[in-house]
């Protein structure tokens, strides 16, 4: 996804102190950058210290949103809600912050969501020519990257979540396709659209999945590139050309909100799903959706979107779902995954059920976050969870390098760690971004306050750090006036 750009020398502001972009411009083209890795390989000197007053190349008021910024060919793309029912995609000059375009959409009536999720939640993807983004009440939208004009719009059904979380899935671009995985509790699917026309190349239902937010990744093993998607109980490999399922590794948990990362031919996951292995979906439903607490689900206790599923599960047609009927309605009997905490390394490739054969190592360890994805960098897999509690494991054998060590910043962690130039950036919800040294020991290099909540994972490209806080978009770079 790296693109070559001409050498640009851009003088900033009247002071005339300039930043020179490298000859080869670096992109961060989707959620968490290249292949969702969280790594900007070409940036060797990203900013170490920054704040709302220090090393700010530029900043803009965006409005509320939690989608990550992306950077492609010298432009930054971001999303926001400009009004209660108006969604916008924006393009900015990556160096100056000049707004290049803004395209708005009326959203219609919006579904309930659970904070900290926001309606502008889907991270765009871009191939340099077109920006692709999903919105819950619309579907996939393709916009001209240079001026924001709509190229096509592919309507998709609105996702529904039994727990009311709301949509937050993001597309990726692979070859000439836009690939989008949407695991909701109603009609989960994986879809590939022609990126030029928006027409469907293939669509693969994922009926045994529950609501989740994992972004697909690509893994090349034994000369074959597979599309890999984590979901309820299963990590699955698909043929990106056809959407056909190639393999499944049935080792995951019930609710999957993190995304896997790929290093060489290995896929790494860190997962946390509430409860123990016996806590399948029905217990959550009986705890939270059985409003009158009579031990059975009534239709009126569920959104109308789920009523067909309800009828399907109501075997005795008595108007209630009890015990196995709840399972039958909402969780596949072939995939009764429960809760837990696991970190796994799974070899890519293969065919059929690879649960045993592909497992390189698997840890039951309470280190994982349920939302922040792991970072595979410099030979280690780093995970950070609520409280700023970190752990690192050897990528090869899963041995513990450290665990239960704090990054000196409390609070929640929704954004995932990212890395460049030997530095690891750990963004906390409280607006503090801790910078760690990539190394065998936890070493704090800096703690930077950006003054607003951070839910979205920042982006790094060309030694600039782009941070989308709850309300603003910052570009931080060193050597600023």
């Amino acid at each position, binding site marked *: 996804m790296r693109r070559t750009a001409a050498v640009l020398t851009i003088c900033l502001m009247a002071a005339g102190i300039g930043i020179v972009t490298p000859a080869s411009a670096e992109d961060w083209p989707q959620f968490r950058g290249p292949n969702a890795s969280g790594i900007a390989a070409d940036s060797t000197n990203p900013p170490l210290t920054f704040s709302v007053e220090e090393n700010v190349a530029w900043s803009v008021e965006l409005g509320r949103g939690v989608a990550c910024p992306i950077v492609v060919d010298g432009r930054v793309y971001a999303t926001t809600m400009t009004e209660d029912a108006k969604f916008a995609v924006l393009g900015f000059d990556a160096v100056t912050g000049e707004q290049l375009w803004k395209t708005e959409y009326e959203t219609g009536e919006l579904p*309930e969501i659970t*904070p*900290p999720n926001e309606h502008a939640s889907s991270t765009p993807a871009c191939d340099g020519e077109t920006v692709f983004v999903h919105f819950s009440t619309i579907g996939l939208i393709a916009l001209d990257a240079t001026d924001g004009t709509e190229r096509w719009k592919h309507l998709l059904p609105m996702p529904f979540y039994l*727990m*009311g979380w709301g949509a937050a899935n993001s597309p990726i671009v692979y070859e000439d396709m836009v690939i989008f995985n949407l695991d909701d509790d109603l009609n989960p699917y994986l879809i590939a659209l022609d990126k030029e026309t928006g027409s469907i190349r293939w669509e693969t239902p994922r009926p045994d999945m529950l609501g989740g937010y994992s972004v697909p990744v690509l893994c090349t093993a034994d000369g074959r590139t597979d599309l890999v998607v984590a979901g309820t109980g299963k990590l699955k490999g698909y043929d990106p050309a056809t959407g056909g399922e190639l393999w499944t590794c049935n080792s995951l948990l019930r609710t999957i909100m993190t995304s896997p990362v790929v290093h060489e031919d290995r896929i790494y996951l860190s997962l946390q799903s509430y409860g123990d292995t016996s806590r399948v979906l029905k217990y959550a439903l009986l*705890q*939270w*959706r*059985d*409003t*009158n*607490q009579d031990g059975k689900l009534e239709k*009126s*206790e569920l959104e109308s979107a789920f009523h067909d599923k309800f009828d399907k599960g109501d075997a005795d047609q008595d108007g209630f779902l009890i015990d196995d009927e709840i399972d039958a309605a909402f969780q596949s009997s072939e995939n009764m995954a429960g809760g837990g905490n696991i970190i796994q390394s799974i070899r890519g490739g293969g065919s059929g059920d690879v649960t045993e054969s592909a497992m390189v190592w698997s840890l039951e360890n309470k280190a994982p976050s349920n939302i922040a994805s792991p970072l595979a960098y410099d030979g280690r897999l780093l995970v950070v969870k*609520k*409280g700023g509690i970190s752990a690192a494991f050897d990528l090869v054998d899963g041995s513990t390098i450290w665990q239960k060590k*704090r990054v000196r910043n*409390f*609070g*929640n962690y929704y954004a995932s760690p990212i890395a460049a130039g030997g530095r690891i950036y750990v963004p906390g*919800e*409280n*607006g503090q971004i801790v910078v760690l040294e990539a190394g065998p020991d936890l070493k704090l290099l800096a703690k930077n*306050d950006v*003054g*607003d*909540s951070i839910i979205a994972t920042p982006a790094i490209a060309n030694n600039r750090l782009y941070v989308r806080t709850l309300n603003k978009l910052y570009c931080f770079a060193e050597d600023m006036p």
Partner: protein
Amino acid sequence: MRTGSSVLLQAAIALSVIVWGTVTGAAEHVTVVVGPQAPRIEQYAAEELAGQFGRLFRDVDVSVASTIPADAQYVVLIGSPKTNPAVRDAARSSWPEVSDQGLVIQSLSGDRDTLIVGGGSPVATLWAAYELGHRLGVRYLFRGDIYPGEQRDLNLTGHVVVMEPELRVRTWRTVNDFAVGPESWGLTDHRAFLRQLAKMKFNRVMLSVYPWHPFVTYEFGGVRKETSLLWFGEQYPVDGDTVGKKVFRGARLFENPDFAGIETPQEMTTAGIKHLQGLIDAAHQLGMSVGISISPLEFPREFQSVLPGSRVGNSLNQLTIVPAAEQGPTDETLIELVKSKISAYVNTYPEIDRLYLTLPEFPEWDQHADEAIEILKPHAAPGSLDLENLITRAAERKLIASGSRGKQAIRGNLVGLAFLRTLFSDETLLKRPDGKTLGLVITSVDPALFPVLDRLVPQQAETLNFVDYTARRVAENRELLKDVPAENVGSQLIITLADDNVGILPQAATQSIGTLMSDLKQLGWQGFSTRYWVPAELDPSVYFLARSAWEHDLTPRDAQTELWTTTTGNAAAAERLFIAWEQLEKATELIDRHDLGFAFPVRGMLMKHYVPEPIPDWWQEVTDAQTQYMIELYRAHGAINGGANPLLFYYAKRSEYALEYLGAVKAIREAALAKDQGDPESAIAHLEQALELTYNCINTLSDVAQDQSDRGLIAVLNEYAYRPLLAEYEKLIDGD
């Protein structure tokens, strides 16, 4: 929220151009007719009602006019026969006899659909407009109104309402003390809050102010009041490490917005007077009467030189002096000093309606009880003021002020009452500059004196009575209420909605308040005044209080069920919410019973638990109740859509904060135990856990902070909980 700008409104009425409602198809036209010379409050009532109709009914447009248009099909007549000729003509003999607080909502049959919305006074008309809104499904809460999820077809028929209050005094107390309470609110916040209180038919506002506050200045004996402080002079800095700092929007200090950036006492006082006067004006505009509550026997410390022998009072940060042995209840200097103070308030705020004089909470001035008895005896029935008997009763009762504190309380109370008797021999003291006489309310007469309450307070004075700190404690001692001769003296009860001693955790007391409201009605009391600091979880209690003041048999259960059913549109969710508040009340009661002061918002509030003592079992019971409260909130939140959803989420997040705070307290105790047992590593681990939980609890609050009380709580928790805990942790880490 529309304002009641009378000039604009009158111009608009003349032109009939104010139109409410979104008209999408064939619209029905509703004309709201207010008298051409109607009082300003009735004009405001017309505007409010028109706004409500625009939101409640589908496909209507609503205009306000001063006469009935000839072709009008739907007409709402605002006011009474005295204020609106259209009401007089339409109602004729059907206008019911109502008091100045009585409401009338009456549908009339005829050529057009006509509805009268009026009352026995202009403010009663405003209340009638809100009562109509209530009956059409609007629920008025602190933070705004919750409207029904769907608009309904226009229908003005079927209303036959004549209401009189069960309790004619419905007082809302505000200002108070502590950064977590309304002392932190700016005038803008107060105005919004008052508008909601008017909708709930509160009719009095009591401005509870303290000697160190910046709301008045006076001079006596060459000494001028210089002390001008909020929050006992406490400061709440915001820096890079302040948890939840996003709520302060870049400010370096948490401040009341009306006092932001002010540094000198003089500027503070100027701002304070503007603030309080604004509050008075805002309440008056909504038809509420306003009183200022002061403690006449406490003074800022600069007055020590003019009151020889006076001692430092029992207040936080020792900001006051109080009389002592050298002053008797007829001390001339003291009398003149108090007169200067009272006059200053009366002259600074010449439009207030009454003055509340509060007897001290900690009556150290108790040395002259015998003399006081002699002064009071001529006013009381023979034998009713036997000092020894009174002291015995005060010592043996089951109130916080019992035992030695009870003895001091009754002695000091008698001295204070004797002093007030002497003071008010000067009848000019309560004269406003315009010649009118202020109402007088004596507050906090000791319950041992309830049987002779009518004899001890100055003539014409009402009483505002404090029994104990929490509603539960008052309910447990409800027999005391029967001692008050309510038929002879205007009597109101202080009803604590949430107590500052129980502290900054979510609280509820609705069941106890239900007991007290029932008693007040049966015993013929005038009404009540509220007491609270953080308003957050008080919606159900205040809703009940407001409705119960007008409905004889309303129970807390019925009120809450009705409130939640209406606002959520889901009976099952309403039931869960009722259970949620039961659990919250259980948690409140446990803290109240076992450790009143558990989370009192002062320095040391968290670290006082850092002592090597066993972890009490009741902590877990509180945690269990708070956990169930949280579960029920999220359960209800997940079941509903629409208006009440953000409110339930706010409550739910605050319940998370409570659990995290409770977890931090437990971890601190565990750290203290480990340290005491010579296990510093374990102590550090527990302190680290406490730090994380404290951090999280503040951060959780910041996710949903809505008002200045929420922000004040975040500031307080940083200053009194997080920073001292961090300091102790770092001390231990450094091996000190």
